[in-house]
Every structure is written in C-alpha cells, then in structure tokens.
C-alpha cells in the first residue's frame, strides 16, 4: 500500500467522523435543505471533470469530460440556488405578506417596523 493511498484513506475516515459530528446537529426541520446543500457540495466532482478536459486528447475523453462537467455543474449551481430558495422561506415570525386574517397580520408586523414605542401605543389602542 502506497503512502499516498494511506494518506487519502486517513483523510477519508477522519472526514466521515467530522461529517457525522457536524451533521447530527442539524435539526430535522432543515433536513431537506441539508440534502440539497449536500447535492451542491458533491458537485465538487466538477474538479475531476475539469482535470479530464485538461489532460485528454481523444474524442472519447472530450465526450466524457463534457458530460461529467455538465452533470457536476448542474449539481453545483442547482444545489446552491434551490437550497437558498428553501432557506429563505424559513422565518421565525409570520410576515405581513401572509394571507393572514386582517386582525393578526398588521398587529404582528407593525411593531417590528415601528419600534418599541409603537408596541405600547398599539397595545393600548387595541
């Protein structure tokens, strides 16, 4: 077994442990964005596709490089954009744009916009 392979194996095993540690702390509510973020991260195989394109000189090699680069960059771009789209929807409080009954939405949204003074005033008024 070569030193290079041994080094690679050590890195692989330690990264697995780091992965288990870090990801077991992700709450269930974010598991779908976690998976699409993982999609984006495994798009790193794009690096491999680029290196094929750089070293090959046969048409088979170019074909493989093209398809691999296409697949991998779909992962990178798509995974990142869709993860961002989902995470943007996770809010701590309902927003004013929600189809809320008239009574609830302004009361919840106005204090946030107008500051503490407005809270007291609104509270007394209602």
């Amino acid at each position, binding site marked *: 077994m070569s030193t290079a392979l041994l080094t690679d194996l050590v890195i692989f095993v330690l990264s697995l442990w780091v992965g288990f540690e870090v990801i077991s702390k992700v709450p269930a509510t974010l598991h779908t964005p976690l998976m699409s973020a993982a999609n984006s991260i495994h798009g790193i195989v794009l690096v491999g596709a680029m290196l094929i394109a750089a070293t090959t000189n046969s048409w088979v090699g170019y074909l493989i490089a093209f398809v*691999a680069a296409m697949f991998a960059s779909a992962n990178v771009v798509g995974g990142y954009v869709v993860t961002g789209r989902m995470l943007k929807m996770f809010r701590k409080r309902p927003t004013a744009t929600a189809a809320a009954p008239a009574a609830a939405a302004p009361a919840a949204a106005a204090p946030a916009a107008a500051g503490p003074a407005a809270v007291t005033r609104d509270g007394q008024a209602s």
Partner: protein
Amino acid sequence: MSGFSFTTQLIYVLAASCFVLGLHLMNNPASARRGNQFSTAGMVIAVATTLALIAHAGVISATGWIVMLAGALVGGGVGLYAARTVQMTAMPQLVSMFNAVGGGAAALVAIHDYIRVAAAVSGVGESTTITTLLDVIIGSVTFSGSIIAAGKLQGLITSAPVTFPGARVVNLLLAAVGLGAGGYVISTPSLAGLWIVVLASLAFGVLMVMPIGGADMPVVISLLNAFTGTAVAMAGFVIGNWALIIAGALVGASGGILTKLMADAMNRSISNIIVGGFGTGDTPVAALPGAGAGVKAIAADDAAIQLAYASKVIIVPGYGLAAAQAQHEVAELAELLESRGVEVSYAIHPVAGRMPGHMNVLLAEANVPYPQLKEMDEINPEFARTDVALVIGANDVTNPAARRPGTAISGMPILDVDHSKSIIVIKRSMGHGYAGIDNELYTDPKTSMYFNDAKAALAELTSAVKTLVG
C-alpha cells in the same frame, strides 16, 4: 511535490474547510443561509484553484477549454432553471436527479481514468483500480437507481412496488457478474471488462429501486445521497484530490445519518434494507375485531367550534396534506385560530413527507414560522395537555397499534395523538395507510372523523370558524 502543487493542495483543504463550516452553520435555521454561502465560497475557491492548476500545467488544448466551458454552461443553465422553477412538492424528484448526475459524474471520472491508465503500456497499479472500480460501481448504481427513484416520485413510473419472480436471483447474478468482471479488470487491464462492470451496476441500480413503494422513498433518497457522496470520495482517491475526498465523505456521512433516521422512523433496520431488499409492508394483516365499527363522523361546523374554543391545538400533517397541496389552507386556518388566542403548533413525524424534512419545507413555504414546527420527541409530551389534535392526511404514524407487539407497525415510533383530549381526523375515506392495517385511532371514542379532501375540508373549517365565531 512542487511548491505550486503543494500550495494548490492547501487551498483545496481550505475549500473543504468551507464545506465543513457551511454544514456546521446549518444547525440552526437562522444561520443556515450563511452556511449555504460558505459552502458555495468553498466551491468557488476549489474551481478557481483548479483553473489555475490547469493553466499552470499548460497541457490543455483549445478543444479542452471549449469542452469544459460548454459542459459547465449547459449543466449550470439546466441546474439553475430546475432550481428556480421547481415546486416545493417536487423537491424529492429534484434532489434525486441531482443525486443521479452526481453519481454519474463520479463514475465518468473513474471510467476515464481507467481508460487512460489501461492505455499506458505499464498496465494498472492494483491500489488505483480498487478505488476506481468502487467509484464506477457505486456511481453507476446511484445514477440509474436515482433516475428510477425520480421517475417514481414524479409518477412517470408506477410508485407501487414492481417485482417479478426470481428478482432476487437476477440481483445476485448481476452482483456476481459485476464483481467477477471487477476482479478480472484489476488483474488484467481490459476495457470490455470495465464496460461489463458499468452495465451490471446500472442494471443493479434499476432493480434495486423498482421494488420499492412510494412510501419508502425517504429511505431510498437518503441512501442514494449517501452513495453519491461515497462515489465522489472514491473519485477523489482516483485523481488524488483531497477536496473531493473530504467533500464526498461529508455528503456520505450526511446521507448515512439521514438514512438511519428515516429507517428508524419507518421501523426498518438498515441491514434489512440493504441486504434483504426493501420490504413494503404489503403483506395482508388480519383486521382487528370490531375495527371499522364505531367510527364517529363530524360536520364542519362542529369541528370548527371545537377548534375555535380550544386553548391548545396540535396539527398533525401527513403526506395526504402535501398530495392535496393543502399546506396554504392549513396555514390560513392556523393563523385564524392563533388570532383568536389558540396556541397552535405542528407535530412533524420524520417521514411525514417524501424525503427527510419535506413537510417542514412545505409548511415554511406556506409562511408557517419554523418555531411552530415541532419534532416528534419534542411534541409527544405535549399531546396530554392538548384540547384538539387535528390530523390531516397522516395515518400509520398516528396508529396506537404500533405500541403493541404483533402488528405490522409494531415498534414504529408514532406521534402520541391519542393522548390528547379530543381528536379530529380529516380523511377522504376509511382507506388504509401503506402498512395496510386499520388505524385504531379512528375508532377511539375521543376521535371524530371529518370525511373530505384535505384542501376542501380546511377551507370549509376556516370559513366556518369565521362565520360562527369570527
């Protein structure tokens, strides 16, 4: 190692650190977006470093540049379009397709490496080919398996389990052919042998996913996600790149954890899933004596009054809610109840959607604030002090029969819906869940059944609350 390649490896490790940090920041919805940006920064660093490496080496042809850029532009464009336009209900299909192309790309990297090395006169070093073969096998299985999974989720392929007599024998044969050819191409460089491995792996991926029913999809997607990560890590071994090894291991770990969580939530062991194929729980189970009798139906007005005068309501959404696209209606009802001072929260079972966390995303899209979305362990103690539990399109995950031994779902973790003071179940009919057994919750004296489509029922409830007590 030259100074330049030393530096590039260090930068690759920096990129990989960004991935770790990005995943770490996903431990909280508030910091998760920053986490996504960190991961992407890592990706930009890695790609820029690779470009510098290629330019520095100076062996790339003009065709090579064009092929690389064209592939990246086409793939990036398709990925961008899919990511921008996908419906949140279709997220499992998209993630499955992303798994497919990730696995496919990893397999292609290994195939190319094998072709290149096999063409060299000296033959192939043994350690190189073992990782190459693993990459080819795992990547190809992921590619075809994920496409089938996406097809099933999209409804292009029947979501019912597809089996045929002797399927297991065929699977074993394929595994034998793949491993036999694999052993051969390690000892003797042979392109034909490699293609046999590829074809056997592709066929194996198809046959692995075809027998799996729609309700088991959360496990399958997670498992294929883990496969993709592992395939990418193997590609890192093949080309000697640490960024790929680390990133692949992280994704493999992520998929592994999710697979375990989903399998536990569905009461299946991982070994049962991998070795024994996916059982689908479709063996007919004798109905309990008296089941189906004693069901109490309720009208919209009565249900609305119960909800409006409750002080604490827990909503239990299941896949039926997502299938009926009723997440906006349920959010509207919940907001109306909250404006009347009712405490509303959502109890989310781990397999409530078609992939891990799917229901949370659907409800977040409908503007439900995430602090209201409670995980099973967190919400279960709260049912005892809940006035009304509103069950919408969830079945097996609420069945108290799971607590007894001897049923098809025994041991499956469930939501303790039956502990609440009263229960309203919105359901189209008395049909069974995927486990094919009667839900004892429905015959509980505390339970009222509201027979209707989820979307229509919720709209009726909302307007009834408004007119009766508004």
